[in-house]
């Protein structure tokens, strides 16, 4: 198991952002769905080793991120796209991806090729030497995805990766997710239900800091048959599960 969470909680002051999450994940693409404020981002940040849990245990890639040495090892194999990624305006696309490849401790000899591969994978081959300040929002998002995948991570955490991508790019991106899901654990937080249906092998639905559903997209669809509101089967499943959890 690449990810093992047991009774994980996180409090901010008196707010319980994550209220006891138990979850296991091996290779595959996992969709993390839920309304704003459900605790998706806090959960991802804990898995990205940037936010310590308040209680519970967290094992990533078979290691405990609490210790310096195992945490460093986890981080070498981690790809993380934060929800709000800031950019260095004076850097080129290549500079930016290379910078984080180096900070991920990649062997310097491998870096130029890995950077080129990541940039081509997100479809920015014709912008590789453009300054970040000249790029559109969707392109910047793709630069963020490129830095996340540059080290061929075993654990890939993406917080709202499709924000700002146009429909065609989203289709390409989902194919990329499926490809990574063959080898790595990919966890994608999103509020776009159609991303989940097209790319994810399993769905976890969060509400108020808890997991209220975990299963395949088809199982989520089955929950919505007959009740639930929405335009698509997955949306009806989503709303039905949320309504049941809140009642």
């Amino acid at each position, binding site marked *: 198991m690449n990810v093992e969470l047991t009774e994980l909680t996180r409090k901010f002051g008196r707010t319980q952002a994550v209220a006891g999450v138990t979850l296991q994940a091996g290779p595959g693409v996992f969709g993390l769905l839920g309304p704003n404020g459900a605790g998706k981002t806090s959960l991802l*940040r*804990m898995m*990205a*080793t*940037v*936010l*310590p*849990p308040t209680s*519970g*245990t*967290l094992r990533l890639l078979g290691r*405990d*991120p*609490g*210790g310096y040495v195992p*945490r*460093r*090892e986890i*981080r*070498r194999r*981690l790809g*993380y*796209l*934060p929800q*709000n*990624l*800031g*950019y*260095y305006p004076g850097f080129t696309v*290549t*500079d930016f991806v*290379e*910078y*984080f490849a*180096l*900070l*991920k*401790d990649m062997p*310097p000899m491998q870096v*130029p*090729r890995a*950077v*080129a*591969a990541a*940039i*081509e994978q997100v479809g920015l*081959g014709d912008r*590789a*030497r453009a300054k970040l300040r000249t790029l559109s929002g969707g392109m910047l998002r793709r630069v963020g995805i490129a*830095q996340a995948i540059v080290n061929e991570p075993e654990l890939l955490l993406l917080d709202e990766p499709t924000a700002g991508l146009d429909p065609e790019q989203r289709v390409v991106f989902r194919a990329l997710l499926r490809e990574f899901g063959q080898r790595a654990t990919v966890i994608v937080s999103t509020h776009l239900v159609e991303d989940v249906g097209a790319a994810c092998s399993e769905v976890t639905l969060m509400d108020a800091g808890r997991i209220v559903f975990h299963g395949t997209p088809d199982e989520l669809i089955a929950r919505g048959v007959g009740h639930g509101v929405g335009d698509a089967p997955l949306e009806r499943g989503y709303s039905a599960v949320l309504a049941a959890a809140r009642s």
Partner: protein
Amino acid sequence: MTGDNLTGGYQDTGPAPGDVDLDRVWLGVAAQVWRRQPGSAERAAGRLLRSPGLARALVTTPSLLLGWVIATVVILLAGIGFTLGTGTPWVALLAPAVAAAGIAYAYGPGIDPAWELSQSMAVSDRMVLLTRALAVFGLNAALGLAASAASGAAAAVTFGWLVPMTAVCALALAAATVTRSPNVGVAAGSAGWVIAILAGQAAEGRSTAAITDSFLVLPYLAFAACCGAVVLFATRIPRGTS
């Protein structure tokens, strides 16, 4: 010649053979064409720090860029001029504030727009902060010492300001890290230093009291240590979970 398709003679050889992966070939080309050649300073830092990532982070420090260093030198040169002209050790009074500004702009959540991402890196944000702050401090100390010596200040003054400079820099760093704003760091460092000078002047009637009084060394160092602890706390990393 039209009709014979002579000009297209080379293009009619059809698609690439199935066993040749052109994408892979292009990546090999792109890796060479797009790659950035690290400068000599970065290569030297990489060998010294045994980490190319840390070296790259070091050479992108805002307060180590050429413009910043030139500005520092200009200020210190002006200080030398004032010192020689007025007899007041301006260099010693200016150097800690200049260094504090450099430290505040070395690294931190206010400097790094991708701070959240940087925190998840194998080369940790703390290592980057430490390396950059030490490099900025070292450079400013060296420049300040050179300027102080050039202005003909007494040895007590020349070395005396190193200790308060440490304290002021630590204050600037702590303020910049906690408030996530380098400007607040600069303001706090400068304000702290001005208060120390004015307090020294009020108590003993000399503007250099804050620099030369040896009984102040311990309080300065204790204060610097406290600020260092604040920085460590503000950049603390996930504790053990089990």
